[in-house]
């Protein structure tokens, strides 16, 4: 595997991890807005 290939894979992995973390955060953050529905 040459460096260009490795670099492409690392960019892809970083992009996937970045967005995965983003989606997970947003998903876990939702109980907050749902929870607020209960507030008087």
């Amino acid at each position: 595997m040459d460096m260009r290939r490795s670099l492409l894979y690392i960019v892809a992995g970083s992009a996937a991890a970045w967005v995965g973390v983003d989606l997970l955060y947003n998903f876990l953050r939702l109980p907050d807005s749902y929870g607020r529905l209960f507030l008087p």
Partner: protein
Amino acid sequence: MSAMADRIPEIPGFWLIAALALGTIAVEIAIVLLSWARLSRQRKAQARATDGDWQAIAALKPPSRLPEIIATLLPIAVAVTSAVLVQGSRNLLASALNQSDPTAKVLGALRAVNGELNAIAMGLWVTPPTFVAGCIAVALAISARRRAVGLRRAESLAARHDDASAWLKFPGPRAGVLLAAIGAFIVLGFGPIARAGFAAIATTISHFAAVTGLEPQDKGPIFLEGLVRASGLLDRGFLLARAGVAVAAVVALVLAWGFSPARARAGVPGGSRPVHGEGLFGPIVALGVIALAVAGFLAAHR
């Protein structure tokens, strides 16, 4: 343990997600063992070829990409199933809040929120082990495939009486290096956010439990405090996770550069010559992942 068993009915899709996660881990272990066996067979063939006997390398089967594809997709399937179950509880909550009967509304909503919190906790329990197992399986499977290709390349060079020493010595990426690079993203990127998710759920549940028996007007502030604390924990975990992804990218770059088999081959005197035909599958998948990530990012930040 019995307290745990009592809670099973409260966890939406418990058996589905448990079976899927256990099945995933079993398949990942099978892929690890298979790749391990392939790598050790390759090491023996490599040693024999160094002594001039190329038969063992010629007998190596070229491993397919299937194990690494399965190893990647299964943990993602566990995560998606878990998310679907959580979303199911959220939909139940929305429909409960639309009911006109106040008692049915409150009971339905409480059951839905309880289900949602349990489903998230369950997801946070079962998904990380599948990703860890998947990460080990993917690293070993890719290494076994790439090294088999490299060894066969060495064999074809030797058959033509060319210098095969560079390919024989450095046939492909080492499993440990791939494991460290992929693992860095999982541990440094997803570790902090999963940990924060646990803490946030625990905080929400404990505040939820604390308001039982209180007067309705006293419930609000305690409940709100729990939500604010949970959000704060998640926000901190998110920042750490973002930094973790950046650190993991640097770790992967350093590993790719430091342990590059192509660079090692180039260092063997008279050995390396460019061999084409590595195929476009990898780069196409990588470009597809980047396109999906950009689309996902844009969708999340509309």
